[in-house]
């Protein structure tokens, strides 16, 4: 974990409102693992709080972090991010959070769910799993519509199934609809996406009798576990907080699906 200036290497629009940014941040890239995130500080001093963005990919040797983010609206901080150009510098803090423990997957059948802007971190995960195990796992990606992004890259590491809200590509409906459609099973499920999707993933995981891990989002200030801003409710008393609460930034963002209330 380091607070550093990162140079923007590359910016690209992947789909309507979805952008990729590659950063040169060697120390952070060396430490990174799938499921972790970085805090991005905006070059606008009126907006002090960091934007937590998952690490979509990292290259420890080249010192590169790859981020993929959605612009949330007009006037938002992510909109400002999308106007930055290569060669500019950004302050970042990271890598933050626990990330996925891929070692758990060594001898498991793995099923990955990624929904919307929860898709990017799963690419890094699929790649890590493939590197570890040399075989493809199943990945279900849920998009709004046929404006897909990153989908092709997944194919190198996974068997890709796709759902879209409007049915304009793949299965019409949710990632769960697509998983059911393809009759996917597994004994380890890993997922990132919006709340309703994660609730669906939880039921599905139960149904197929798998263990599950999910990545959560919450508003953050410090990103390192100090402010207690970003907690999620837990089903049991958390070891650090001593209440039924865990810090998404520090104890997560990846949690055992049974430990958190979704």
């Amino acid at each position, binding site marked *: *974990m*380091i*607070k550093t200036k990162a140079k923007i290497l590359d910016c690209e629009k992947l789909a309507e409102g979805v952008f990729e940014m590659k950063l040169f941040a060697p120390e952070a890239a060396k430490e990174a693992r799938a499921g972790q995130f970085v805090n991005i*500080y905006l070059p606008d*001093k*009126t*907006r*002090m*709080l*960091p934007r937590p963005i998952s690490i979509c990919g990292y290259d420890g040797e080249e010192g590169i972090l790859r981020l993929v983010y959605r612009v949330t*609206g007009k006037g938002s901080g992510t909109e400002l991010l999308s106007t930055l150009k290569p060669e500019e510098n950004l302050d970042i*803090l990271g890598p933050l959070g626990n990330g996925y423990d891929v070692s758990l997957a060594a001898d498991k059948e793995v099923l990955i769910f990624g929904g919307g802007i929860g898709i990017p971190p799963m690419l890094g995960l699929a790649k890590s799993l493939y590197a570890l195990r040399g075989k493809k796992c199943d990945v279900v990606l849920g998009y709004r519509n046929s404006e897909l992004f990153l989908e092709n890259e997944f194919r190198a590491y996974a068997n890709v199934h796709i759902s879209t809200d409007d049915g304009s590509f793949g299965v019409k409906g949710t990632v769960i609809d697509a998983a059911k459609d393809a009759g996917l099973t597994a004994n380890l499920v890993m997922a990132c996406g919006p709340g309703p999707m994660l609730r669906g993933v939880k039921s599905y995981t139960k149904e197929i009798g798998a263990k599950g891990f999910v990545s959560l989002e*919450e*508003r*953050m*200030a*410090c*990103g*390192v*576990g*100090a*402010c*207690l*801003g*970003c*907690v*999620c409710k837990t089903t049991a008393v958390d070891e*650090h*907080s*001593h*209440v*039924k*609460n865990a810090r998404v930034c*520090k104890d997560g963002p990846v949690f055992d699906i049974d430990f958190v209330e979704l």
Partner: protein
Amino acid sequence: MADMKINIAGVEWKNPVTVCSGTFGSGMEYSELTDINRLGAVTTKGIASVPWEGNETPRIAEVCGGMLNAIGLQGPGVDVFIERDIPFLKKYDTKIVVNVCGHSEDEYLEVVDRLAGEDVDMLEINISCPNVKEGGIAFGQNPSSAEHITSLIKKHAKQPVIMKLSPNVTSIADMAKAVESGGADAVSLINTITGMKIDIRTRRFALANKTGGMSGPAVHPVAVRMVYETAQAVNIPIIGMGGIRNAEDAIEMMLAGATAVSVGTENFVNPKAAEEVADGIERYLDDNGFSSVSEIVGAVK
């Protein structure tokens, strides 16, 4: 090289810089990012007698030049604090200021009593948290309640007592005088200013708690004014805080009358901010021919 040591209510800090309660955990989380040995003191997150869950989320919202928080004083309780956090902090060469909170007089006193035999240097009593219904703000907005709880706590406390004041009052001077009469050894100010944000897309409050405490550079001019008014009103030392980003902001607060300063929200942006504030103050003293940091306290003309 100017002398950076200060003496605040009988406790010597190696420099006048601490971190604001609630913005630095108990030091552990930031120890990887900053050198705790460089701080005059660490002020901990508010500690209650038992574990507190805090408020629902969202607890954080961004505002222009600052943020709102409505953490609601989540904490593991004083027992865990004593077992886990004090031993951690004792590894460093810095003073330990424990921020104390409670829903009632008894709860405050319970924490104060439990800490009496512990190796902590000062107590900071939070009677100003705007985010918990019974989290002290009732004491913090009324001079006679504030005086009363101060005198109760003073009877129990084995460490010097800093009363932490709320800016959400008509007269900060009256509040400061009240806790001084109650026997406070020092005051710290400001706690957060109550604010609100509404998401116009969803037409919902940005915070689950509706209101939150505003902090960050946006509150700095209010904090400087209140430190000045307090310095004119009382003789006990002041720990100044509110929107300090850098040494310049901290020096301003000291010129207004603060003996020590505390860095809060800026930690979230620059984890080394408090260290850099200490360095910057020292440079300012040297550049301006002061031999001791105490010379600039209240030195505004």
